[in-house]
């Protein structure tokens, strides 16, 4: 028995070793002249030039498996993504693997590439995307869909799993929106659910052992890989957290409703749970973070101090799906922050998480970091609207420039804030704003959503009321200098949240609310910023969609949809036409209240919180009842322990969901906040406000 196991191990090792023996496939890079001539014609050529500090350009003939991280948005957004910085280091630390980068080309370069018939290249060694073994897309926002197709197409890679030849790369996706991977199913060979740090290593090991990187020539001069695509896909499906869409087929009822998935292969598990990185608390990856040559949205180092969030805001997919909460000890966080600052030369470091004011050791870490690196500027995102946050920022940045303070009350009345579990009263918002004004801030930014479930016109007008009230307080303190900026976006129901069944308002309803709010909210010192409601409809439709939306995405791309995440490029009519061509209705996907007994297209991609909890919490929402944060209050029985193998610790202040692991296998969801809001930052003529969507951010320390 033992001998057999040993023999097997030996055989596997031989296979692996044989597979890793070089020299490896090393196609020529694009000629420098070609690149130079193209880059001389486009704006911001630094986006495509590479050569950044901490970027890694390995010799292709010496490395077995080649990854390219394809970030489907512009360089300024993609380079801000912490997940990319982490996974880039994780893979490049392996001698047998290389990871390069590629970002969505702006429309000018895309046109030049098509005209010159030059493929989209990786920044490090300027190889076409089609030359890689694996392309990894990071999906942080639904509206990047056409960028994915554009990059594959210009990169010379087949758009869909079905179209890809044996020699073409494997196309994999991960990121914050893959809890519903169904609209992406046509395009992705595999989807990684949850945190990527361990999964990318396991995928690399598997592909190397199977020989996916090997090129075998045939007498005709063509070549194929060391293993066929179907075998690889079946093997990938056995890795925990990896979803292979082509191994399933959806069923629909005659009326178009989704009726469940058929498994087409024994290798396909009935449900897939997202991964949790094995040792988040004690081990920090992503130290030698990429430092861009040109300015980007979040142009600073980042140390992730905490993962997960237990606040329980009912609209927030990140908060629901990144559980369990895990905190880094102050020693680990400070040491890593120092190492990152040293390795990057950055002047500023963000203490990132979904809500850093909730991080138990935030004061200790900030104080100690300031003591050790007095010249470093600290910044932190926070979702909290309370005195603690203001005090915290004030304490860390004595005398810093106070350009603006951001709070996210999200809704206009306390009743509606109770409905969404953002349990903060008008009085608390007012006293918090007063404190910020007293401490020297003269401008306050407030984030709100309209169209939340159960919203009435009173709630909408409440946004104006609270904004005015805050402004009056500012006027009393700072006179005419005081400013309130209200940033209004449209509610988008997100899968795996208590609001996943709730439809968006109709376009007419949203427009009526916008008109009412505009009327109520104007005057000196008050400004409003609107998020385009039409793009929220497409976001919601794609977010709650099924596999039929793959065809819609493709149609929209064929019709010329590009860089949809940018308001100046987004074209709603084009999307409507794409839906119409496929006989589908975006309103049916975005605005319909889904009955709770209906099958959900994403139900097999089991979230870390249980469906029972989501239903229970939705009932509490309808009754405008809060669910208390288990960081401080009682356990809400969200189901994370049974789904993930984590046990929640009971601390002095009550149950506390963190840190204690049961067994070896850790699992969870997500690796970085959605970048949707980064775009707001880039569009505005001020530093980006927030690291995570709809979070209030407090950036401080003289950067202004």
């Amino acid at each position, binding site marked *: 028995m033992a001998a057999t196991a040993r023999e097997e191990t030996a055989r596997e090792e031989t296979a692996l070793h044989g597979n890793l023996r070089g020299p490896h496939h090393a196609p020529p890079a694009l000629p*420098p*002249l070609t690149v*130079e*001539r193209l*880059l*001389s*014609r*486009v*704006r*911001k*050529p*630094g986006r495509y*030039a590479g*050569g*950044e*500090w901490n970027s890694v350009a390995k010799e292709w003939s010496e490395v077995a498996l080649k990854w390219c991280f394809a970030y489907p948005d512009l360089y300024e957004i993609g380079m801000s993504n912490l997940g990319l910085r982490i996974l880039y280091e994780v893979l490049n630390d392996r001698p047998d693997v290389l990871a390069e980068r590629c970002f969505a080309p702006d*429309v*000018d370069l895309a*046109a*030049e590439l098509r005209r010159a018939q030059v493929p989209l290249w990786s920044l490090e060694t300027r190889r076409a995307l089609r030359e890689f073994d694996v392309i990894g897309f990071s999906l942080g926002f639904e509206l990047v869909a056409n960028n994915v197709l554009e990059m594959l197409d210009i990169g010379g890679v087949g758009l869909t799993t079905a179209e890809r030849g044996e020699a073409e790369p494997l196309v994999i996706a991960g990121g914050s929106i893959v809890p519903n991977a169904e609209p992406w199913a046509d395009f992705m060979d595999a989807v990684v659910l949850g945190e990527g740090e361990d999964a990318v290593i396991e995928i690399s090991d598997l592909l190397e052992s199977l020989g996916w990187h090997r090129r075998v020539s045939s007498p005709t001069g063509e070549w194929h890989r060391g293993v066929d695509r179907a075998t690889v896909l079946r093997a990938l499906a056995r890795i925990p957290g990896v979803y292979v869409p082509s191994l399933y087929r959806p069923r629909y009822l005659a009326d178009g409703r989704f009726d469940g998935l058929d498994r087409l292969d024994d290798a396909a598990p009935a449900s897939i749970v997202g991964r949790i990185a094995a040792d988040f608390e004690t081990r920090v990856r992503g130290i030698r973070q990429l*430092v861009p*040559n*040109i*300015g980007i949205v979040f142009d600073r180092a980042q140390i992730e101090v905490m993962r997960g969030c237990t606040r329980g805001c009912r609209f927030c997919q990140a908060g629901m799906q990144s559980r369990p909460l895990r905190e880094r000890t102050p020693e680990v966080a400070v040491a890593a922050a120092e190492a990152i*600052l*040293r*390795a*990057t*030369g*950055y*002047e500023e470091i963000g203490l990132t998480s979904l809500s850093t004011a909730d991080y138990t050791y935030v004061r200790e870490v900030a104080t100690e970091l300031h003591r050790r690196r007095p010249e470093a500027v600290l910044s932190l995102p926070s979702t909290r609207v309370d005195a603690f946050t203001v005090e915290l920022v004030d304490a860390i940045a004595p005398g810093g*420039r106070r350009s603006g303070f951001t709070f996210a009350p999200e809704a206009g009345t306390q009743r509606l804030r109770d409905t969404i579990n953002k349990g903060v009263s008008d009085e608390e918002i007012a006293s918090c704003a007063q404190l910020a004004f007293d401490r020297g801030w003269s401008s306050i930014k407030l984030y709100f959503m309209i169209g939340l479930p159960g919203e009435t016109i009173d709630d909408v007008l409440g946004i104006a009321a609270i904004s005015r009230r805050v402004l009056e307080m500012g006027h009393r303190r700072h006179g005419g200098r005081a400013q309130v900026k209200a940033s209004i976006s449209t509610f988008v129901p997100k899968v795996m949240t208590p609001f996943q069944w709730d439809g968006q308002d109709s376009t007419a309803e949203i427009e009526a609310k916008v008109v009412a709010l505009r009327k109520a909210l104007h005057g000196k010192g008050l400004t409003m910023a609107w998020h385009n409601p039409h793009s929220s409809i497409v976001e919601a439709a794609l977010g709650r969609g099924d596999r039929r939306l793959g065809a819609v995405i493709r149609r929209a791309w064929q019709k010329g949809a590009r860089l949809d995440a940018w308001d100046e490029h987004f074209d709603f009519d084009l999307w409507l036409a794409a839906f119409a061509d496929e006989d589908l209705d975006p309103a049916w996907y975005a605005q319909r209240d889904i009955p709770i007994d209906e099958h959900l297209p994403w139900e097999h991609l089991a979230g870390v919180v249980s469906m029972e909890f989501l239903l229970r919490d939705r009932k509490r929402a309808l009754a405008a009842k809060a669910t208390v944060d288990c960081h401080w209050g009682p356990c809400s029985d969200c189901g994370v322990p049974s789904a993930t193998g984590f046990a929640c610790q009971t601390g002095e202040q009550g149950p506390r969901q963190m840190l204690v692991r049961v067994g070896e296998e850790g699992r969870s969801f997500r690796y970085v906040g959605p970048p949707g809001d980064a775009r707001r930052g880039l569009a505005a003529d001020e530093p980006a406000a927030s690291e995570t969507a709809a979070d209030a951010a407090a950036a401080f320390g*003289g950067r*202004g």
Partner: protein
Amino acid sequence: MSEIRQRWRLVFARDEEARYLSHLDAVRLWERAFRRGEIPIAKSEGFNPRPKLVFAAPLQLGMLAERELADIFLAERLAAHDLRHRLEAGMPRGYRVVDLHDVWVGASALAPQLAAADYRMTLCNVEKDDLAAAVAKLKAADTLPRLRRREKRSISYDLRPLLLEAEVRPPDPAAMVPDTIELPPVGLWLRLRHSQNQGSGRVDEVVAALADELGMATRLPPSEDERGVAESAAGPDAGIRAESTRQSSAAGATSEAGFGLERPLLEAIRAVRERLLLAEELETAGSQPSVE
């Protein structure tokens, strides 16, 4: 302001890897390089203290360079080899230390001493003799009235006093010439005025003036952070790019083919700033370039 204990004049080169940086990007990168190298640089006064690192002249996006100048003010004394070592440890890719000179702390500021800059580039699509004739015409002119776009305004100026020297030379051997171009490439060497109070000439403005003489079009180099705008070749300001870093243009992606049909394109490739000349150097240098 931290006390200044030492001042170094850094001579550095910029290669292809860093050519697409704007001046602002480059300054930010150098500041990070100083932090990575743990160089004890002095800080400026003010609410938002900046490292005391002063460049003689901004280097345009797309331009290579062989001998750029910057003054580094240190709060602690360092030996030359130590500073060089620390610089090289953290320096942005594509930059090289060429030389380091000790400068008296009280010496006058660098930028006001600047008088001129030498450039070389390679031009495509033009006969050598035609170019030489156009160059001679520019040099023979008493004035060269041209328009320079700034923000959305056009400013008229005289290019002639900014053009100190111009000479047709053999092409730069390092220049990569597309094989679609039939005529052999021609080298052009320029000495342009670079002065804080008397104005500075720009390579692309000279190329545009030559193109007008030749009845050709120009394609602009990528601007600081906006498009490499292809302006209409018809106007008197054809080919003049705005100095502003924030001008948006309706021209969009270049349409070389569009106007190329009417006028052939005078294309400048691999523009290199060879050296910056201080006032005293310009006096002794005469019109002769430094020999490589």
